Structure formats: C-alpha cells, structure tokens
C-alpha cells in the first residue's frame, strides 16, 4: 500500500512539472492582447517578460515611472512592438524639471519646474528610496522657479498623472570677488558680509590715491564645496592679528599689475595685484566711482563672462554707463529711520516690513530693453540686471545698505543682509561647471521630462483610437499557477521521501 502511495506521489510530482513546462511553452506564442492602461503597466511587465507578446498597445492614462518605461523599452528592443496613444481627449502634461546649483558658497539650488498643461503640481524632495521618505517643498499653480537653500536628495515634480525626477548634476567653481571702492562703511560692511557668507573677497579700499587697503593675492580656483567649507580654511591660512601679511599681497600705493605665477611663493607686499579677468574673479563689486581700474578693463571682463555689481554711488564712473542696465537715476528717495520697523524677521512679505524700504534709493530709470528688474520698491526699480556679452551686470539703486545690518531691529537682520548680498552676487557671478557631483545610481533614477522621454522611446502616439476591446492572448498563464505546480511537485516529493524514511528506505 505504502509503495503504491509512494509511486502515486512520484507521478503527481512529475505531472506537475510537465504541466509547468507545457504552460511555459504555450505562453511563448502568446498573441497580442488589447490596449493596456499605463497605470496597469507595473502589474503586467513581469508577465510580459516571461511571455513576451509580439505587440503591445499602451493607452497612456498616466505617465509610467522611469523604470517601467525603461522596462518597456527593453521589451521593445527584444522584439515586442509597442504602440501607444493618449487616453481620452486630454493629453498628459509635458512636465519638465531641472536642478542647478547657484553660484554661492552655501550651495543653494535653483529648481525650474515646468508644469506644461497641468494646472497644479507638487514639488517634493525624495530623501531616501528605502524607506521612501519625501519632503514637501512647495505647491505650484504654474511653472515656477524655486530656490532651495539645500538639497540632499532628488527633486520630484508630481501631478496626478505624471512625475518628473531630477538630480543635481554639477558643481560650480567659485573664485574670489573683487571689491572696489573708497574705504567706507558701505565697503567695510559689504566685504564683511560676503566674507562671512563664505566668499573670498579681494577688497581694494582706497584711503587715498596712494594708499589702498586690503588687497589679497589671487587664489587658485576652488570648487564650490571647498568654498562652502569655509572661508574658515581660507582665513585659517590668512591668520588673525597681523594675518594680512600671511595672506600675501598688499595695497601699497602704485602696486604693479599681476604676476599670477608668483602665487603660492613668498610674496613681496605690494607686488601682487591680480588682473581683472574671469580666471581670477567670479565678480567685481563697484561701490563708488573712486575705483582706479579703468572702465574698459571692467567692460572686457564682463564681455568675457565676468559679473559686475554696480552700486548707486558707482554709476557715474566714467565709461561705465554703457555697461549698466539703467541709463539714469530718478529722484533720490531719502533714507528713513529703522526704529518703527517691526522686529519680526524680514522675509520680503511686504513693503511695510521690508528693511530695504528704509534705505536711501536712487531709483533706476531708462532701463535698456534687455534689462530685467530683480527688485522694485513701490513703483521704483531698485535692482536691475542685464546681460553684456558673456557676462552680466547688476545695478543696485540702494545706497548706504550697511544701515540695514546696523540698524534693523530684527535679530536676524545680519543674516538676511548677508543672504541678500549673496543673492546679488550670485545673480552675476561667473562660476564655471566643475566636476560632476552626481552618483551613477542617482543618474539612473532621474527622469526630468517623462513625456519627452516616452516620445523618445516609443515614437509618436498612434493616431485614432487604440480600441477598447478586451482581447486576451490565447493562453496567458497565471503566475500563481507556476507557484501552485511547483508547490505541488515539491509537496509530493517530500511526502514520498517521508514515507520512505518512515520505512527506513531513504
């Protein structure tokens, strides 16, 4: 009896395995099915991989994720023809997402989020894939430009029907800033703000025609990350106390023009004065008209890609007018005291709370056609920018901006003052792309324009209706059947073995 049972179990196991093999062979010849909704792709891709159909029709009710699209592309490359069409009358939104570092030692990120035809979208940051952690960034009603102070993961732009993913791709190389002007509170506070923000500043502050304080040698270009770690490193080199000497260079009157090859070697104070070009400086800040550097040098610098930031008292510098975005200044708006300004943090919530409303303003007028207004105060243009050649010029109408740092009652005023100055600088700073910061696995996950990628992978949509039939392939084995047959064969063999063991035959 036992032996009969054992033989029976043996036969069951063989039959189950034969059935699995037969179903697999039958599945190879599956004929194309009806249109499949894109939202159903994740459920079908495995099945199609085991039993590749000769043709697939995909109805795009939503944009599949990049990995599903890649999977389908692989099937397509393996011989399965893929045709697709839109679901219903409404086309899917062509989302676009780009992430780019801003020229700033703190490495904020600028995010361009294009919503296409979508009316609303959500920007998120995906910090971790497993476990999935996403952090909401902003809700958008239209295509927008965002500044994110830091970015730790990938950026997602989500609509109900599609999702775009983008990563930071580049590092920027930042060089020192050149600050030109008279020794003044404006110069001193500007230099301090930018240095404390993390920039290296070569400040040439004129005390008299023969005496210029605060010149530093050109630094070798540093990647943004190195700048971000601090001015700390830089200043550690520069030292405190009489540390100026350690930084090399000086400002003795009549200093000779630059000798870049001397960088790193012991420097005779007064010799080194780096030339104003994009190899040495990311931007030039012109505080007033006392700068000894001729305007044509600045013009050539800007044309070659450098950034120029011109302040209210610098606009009369001879030869500079052709570079600036504004042709003239309007009636000066007098400075106001800060006493009645609320102590709450200024976030630009409104003019009444904006500390820059208390500054003296030389409104920018007669803007050139290509100029773009970066900031207004009431009806007046306060900050404007224009491209000149490969570079950019920003003109600032405010005067005595240092009063904001000193007088604004808000506790975070110094931080806001620094951030605003850094924003001005980053609007013009020349910052070439450095090495790639992107990890390969992150690059694979990026999907910055999903609809465009879909078009690139599968061509244009099929005109007309894909049909709504529910034709199934001749035989599409259910995955669960395999597992069932496998379990049956295994159980039969195990039982046979147990029986044999119990009668000491195994």
């Amino acid at each position, binding site marked *: 009896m036992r032996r009969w049972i054992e033989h029976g179990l043996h036969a069951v196991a063989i039959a189950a395995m034969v059935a699995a093999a037969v179903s697999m062979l039958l599945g190879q010849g599956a004929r194309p099915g009806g249109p499949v909704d894109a939202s159903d792709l994740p459920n079908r891709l495995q099945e199609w991989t085991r039993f590749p159909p000769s043709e697939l029709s995909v109805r795009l009710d939503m944009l599949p994720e990049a990995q599903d699209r890649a999977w389908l592309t692989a099937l397509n490359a393996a011989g399965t023809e893929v045709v697709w069409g839109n679901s219903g009358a409404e086309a899917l939104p062509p989302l676009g997402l780009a992430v780019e570092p801003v020229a700033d030692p703190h490495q904020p990120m600028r995010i361009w989020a294009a919503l296409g035809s979508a009316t609303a979208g959500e920007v998120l940051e995906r910090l971790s894939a497993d476990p999935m952690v996403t952090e909401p960034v902003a809700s958008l009603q239209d295509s927008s430009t965002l500044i994110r102070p830091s970015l730790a993961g990938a950026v997602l732009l989500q609509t109900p029907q599609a999702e775009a993913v983008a990563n930071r791709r580049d590092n920027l190389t930042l060089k020192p800033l050149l600050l030109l002007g008279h020794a*003044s509170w404006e110069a*001193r506070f500007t230099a301090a703000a930018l240095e404390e923000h993390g920039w290296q500043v070569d*400040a040439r502050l004129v005390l008299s025609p023969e005496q210029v304080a605060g010149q530093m040698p050109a630094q070798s270009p540093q990647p943004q990350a190195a700048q971000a770690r601090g001015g700390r490193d830089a200043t550690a080199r520069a030292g405190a106390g009489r540390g100026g000497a350690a930084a090399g260079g000086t400002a003795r009157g009549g200093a000779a023009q630059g000798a870049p090859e001397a960088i790193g070697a012991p420097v005779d104070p007064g010799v080194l004065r780096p030339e104003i070009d994009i190899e040495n400086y990311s931007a030039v800040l012109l505080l007033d008209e006392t700068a000894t550097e001729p305007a044509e040098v600045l013009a050539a610098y800007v044309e070659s890609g450098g950034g120029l930031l011109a302040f209210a008292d610098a606009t009369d510098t001879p030869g500079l007018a052709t570079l600036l975005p504004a042709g003239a200044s309007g009636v000066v708006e007098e400075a106001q005291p800060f006493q009645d300004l609320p102590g709450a943090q200024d976030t630009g919530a409104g003019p009444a709370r904006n500390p820059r409303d208390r500054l003296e303003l030389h409104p920018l007028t007669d803007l050139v056609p290509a100029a773009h207004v970066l900031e207004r105060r009431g009806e007046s243009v306060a900050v404007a920018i224009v491209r000149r050649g490969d570079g950019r010029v920003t003109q600032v109408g405010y005067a005595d901006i240092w009063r904001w740092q*000193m007088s604004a009652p808000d506790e975070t005023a110094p931080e806001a003052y620094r951030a605003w100055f850094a924003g001005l600088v980053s609007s013009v700073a020349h910052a070439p792309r450095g090495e790639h910061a992107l990890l390969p696995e992150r690059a694979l996950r990026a999907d910055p324009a999903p609809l465009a990628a879909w078009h690139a992978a599968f061509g244009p949509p099929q005109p007309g209706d894909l049909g709504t039939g529910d034709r199934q392939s001749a035989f599409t084995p259910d995955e669960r059947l395999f597992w069932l047959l496998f379990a049956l064969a295994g159980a039969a063999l195990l039982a046979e073995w147990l029986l044999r063991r119990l009668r000491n035959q195994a």
Partner: protein
Amino acid sequence: MKRFIFATAKYESGDWESAPNLPAALLDLMAKYTTIDCAPAGVIVELGSEELFEYPFVWLTGHFPVRFTERERANLRRYVDRGGFFVIDDHNHDIEGAFHLSVVEEINRTFGPLETVPNDHEIYTCFFEFEDGPPTTSHELNGWGDQLIHEELFAITRNGRICLLYSNKDYSSEWDLRPDTKRFMSLDPTRFGLNLIVYALTR
C-alpha cells in the same frame, strides 16, 4: 554715500562730554592723510537711542563712574554684534579709578572678560606704524593718574575683529586738542586715532 561721522557716546551716568575737541583733532588728521569723505565735526549720540546705530564708530570716555541703563547695555551689545566699532577710553588714566572699575564691570556684565590686544596686532600697523603697540601719552609719561605706563590695550572681538576697544591710556586727554594747536607739535599725537578709524573702516 554717507560721509564718515565721528560720534561721541552720551550716557546717562558720568561726564560723557569730557573730551569735546577730540573728534576734531582726529578728523583733522584724517583729512590730512586720506581722501575719505568726513564730517568736519563730531556728533553726540545717546547710547540708549536707536540713533546710535547710524554711527558705526563711537567714542566713549569720562571720569565718573559708568553705570549703563538696561537700554544702554542692550544697545551696546547689539552695536557690537552688528559690526560697530566702539572705543572706550579711561579719561582718569587710573586703574583704581571710578571710571575704570565701573566700566570694566559693565563690560564684563555685557560681554564677558576683555581680551588683551597683542602689540603686533594690525591695529598698530594698518596705517601709521607703531612697533611697540599702543603709543604712550604725555599723561602716562608725566606720572599722572595711576602713574603707570599701560603697555597694552584690551578688546572684545567678534569673528577675529576688534569691535570694542578699551584703553587705560587716557587718549581722551592726549587727543583733546584743537586742530590748530597741533601746528606747534613736532609729531601729531593723534596718529594712532587715525589707525583706529582706518581699522574700523577697512577690516
């Protein structure tokens, strides 16, 4: 652009106005050696007022005890944190005197202990050069006050920069000169004062 204006701090206690000619003496020197736009006379600004913050260089001196009000103390703290340059000079030239004892107590309460400024600090070399640190005053050499020659100055610093300088040297007596008076001196005694201004304006 605002010109450089020399401000003298007026405080509730003490005799804040004890060196009325000092601003003009320094401004005279400033005009002689620099092209920095500066006002010809100083202003007086109340330490407890918001107006204080319009003047990033402020001089405070006196003979009498200094007891800041809460408002003055808070303003001084904020002034230093915001990047102002504040000079306190003991007009008594006496480390046993009322001004020194009381003002140092006030500084301790407001900022903590003063640091010693090393005599090779850039404040001694940023324009005129003083190899041995702070220049002596005739009051020290004549044995007035505590009859000591004070070798060093003291400071409160922020991010490596002096923002409050404290002196026992009695520069307020030494520099309280009408500019015309300096014509008869072989060496302008206020030169170190210009170093203070240049340091404040460029560092």
